[in-house]
């Protein structure tokens, strides 16, 4: 069984966002694998360690810099990579088409990806990829079992937890609580340098969503801060909650 994991390179979640010339500035920003995709990489590697998958392929669409994200995933234990060069301004539609074209050539049994990216937060791409490929999909999984041509997924759902079964091949997207991604070992990092990474160019596709402008939210102003005995603090906080916020007490 072949597992293919889609990874997106994103800003470190601790990064402070600033604008330069009306665009999001990447100056001095540490780039990482989107944390949700990192969990998908770990999930793929674990499927290989359990003997379910024979090969784990990493696929990323993005700029040349995304090669670092692919190498990190290879250092974690994936086997080889594919970089589809695409402008980072590609929208979810264009991105899904680029990824799906590369996936079609690989014909994997399971496609894994994070259910959302920590940068644009759009949570569309895995589902769009499944639609393009005509495959079933399951989103936001926290556990998976694969047997008898079926994937049985435990998922975070609205108001609870669901267990959903789909036939394989399928596209499966991960929630961060699925697993704890490993840190690449020094040996893994050395090995990753020799693992093959193919590069290709994405076909030109027009975006369906066009960004008109970026802005930063109005900075929240700090209000009152009191340092006093706990009973005074509690009384003043209680007054504020009752008189300003007007909370209801059950």
């Amino acid at each position, binding site marked *: 069984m072949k597992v293919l994991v889609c990874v997106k390179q994103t800003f470190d979640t601790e990064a402070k966002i600033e604008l330069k010339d009306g665009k999001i500035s990447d100056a001095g920003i540490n780039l990482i694998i989107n944390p949700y995709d990192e969990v998908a990489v770990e999930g793929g590697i674990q499927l290989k360690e359990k003997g379910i998958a024979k090969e784990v392929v990493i696929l990323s669409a993005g700029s040349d810099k995304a090669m670092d994200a692919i190498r990190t995933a290879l250092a974690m234990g994936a086997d080889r990579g594919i970089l589809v060069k695409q402008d980072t301004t590609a929208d979810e539609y264009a991105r899904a088409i680029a990824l799906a074209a590369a996936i079609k050539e690989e014909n994997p049994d399971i496609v894994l990806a994070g259910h959302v990216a920590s940068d644009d937060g759009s949570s569309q791409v895995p589902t769009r990829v499944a*639609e393009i490929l005509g495959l079933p999909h399951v989103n936001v999984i926290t556990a998976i079992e694969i047997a008898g041509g079926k994937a049985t997924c435990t998922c975070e759902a609205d108001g609870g937890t669901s267990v959903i079964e789909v036939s394989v091949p399928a596209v499966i997207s991960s929630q961060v609580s699925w697993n704890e991604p490993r840190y690449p070992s020094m040996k893994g990092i050395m090995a990753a340098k020799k693992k093959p990474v193919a590069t290709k160019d994405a076909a030109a596709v027009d975006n369906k969503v066009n960004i008109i402008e970026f802005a930063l939210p109005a900075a929240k102003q700090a209000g009152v801060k009191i*340092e006093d005995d706990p009973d005074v603090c509690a009384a003043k906080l209680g007054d504020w909650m009752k008189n300003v*916020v007007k909370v209801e007490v059950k």
Partner: protein
Amino acid sequence: MAETWVFVEQKDGNIRKVTFEMLSECKKGGDEVGAVVFGQGVEGLAGELAKYGADKVYVADDAIFAGYETGAYVAQMVAMINEFNPNAVLFAHSFNGRDMASRLAQKLDAGLATDAVAAEISAGKGVFTRAIYAGKALAKAEVTGSPVLATIRPGVWEVGSTAGAGAVVKPAIAATAADVYQVMKEFRPTVSARPDLAEAAVVVSGGRGCKGPDGIKLVEDLADLLGAAVGGSRASIDSGWLGHELQVGQTGKVVLPNLYIACGISGAIQHLAGMSSSKFIAAINTDTEAPIFGVSDFGVVADLFKVIPLLMTDLKK
């Protein structure tokens, strides 16, 4: 007359508040408002939907829609869009809403604005404001297409009181068993008397300063007194004190309650991204330099183990 549609989020006949928020907001525009509800035995919901602004209620009532299943729901929606040509279709930015809207958008070769916090819709075009980097920045994006598709973040719009006519329309059932590809083997509802974190009017969150289950218990007690949801920073989730589904921040949930009370949370940037749009923010922390005080309307520099019990006694007065 042109229509804007709202896809109704309901489970077992209980409509989620975000549906009413979307209906009320759409009612302010020039289009007729259509509520679209899929399910089994759901026709009775029309009256409630009309109350919040639905001029028409499209009811696809069939056993195939008894539970959410992407394939069947998308097939039905595609058929209805082709028949009735709405200007726009809005979904809740829930797990199901984003799942359905994404698959639908790709099937229609269309754009989609997910997790929108503001919208301006006209024929063939929608301009949506989206919070990106978990709210550290905003992007205004134009989506063209017919219909315009978006998912809307719960809590950004007010529930209004302008009613619509609520005329029931029963479209042909277009989804068939061949469209179904997900089999729901089990659904375990969250057993909690507390409101949903994403929709709660008050959220009480605990962080590293809670030091363990005893501190979290205080957070939960305060939450229950206020009828609030419980949340946590990454520290309390990683320590196993709270489940991941309660994490507030960039790799968790973005919340915008009326009141957010941060207990023992220092305010790492990735946490602030998830809660700083709350209307009122209170913070309890022993560290006077904690960044959480920079976004707090009311901060107390004190030990939460002492302050929370005193605060609860005070609030009960």
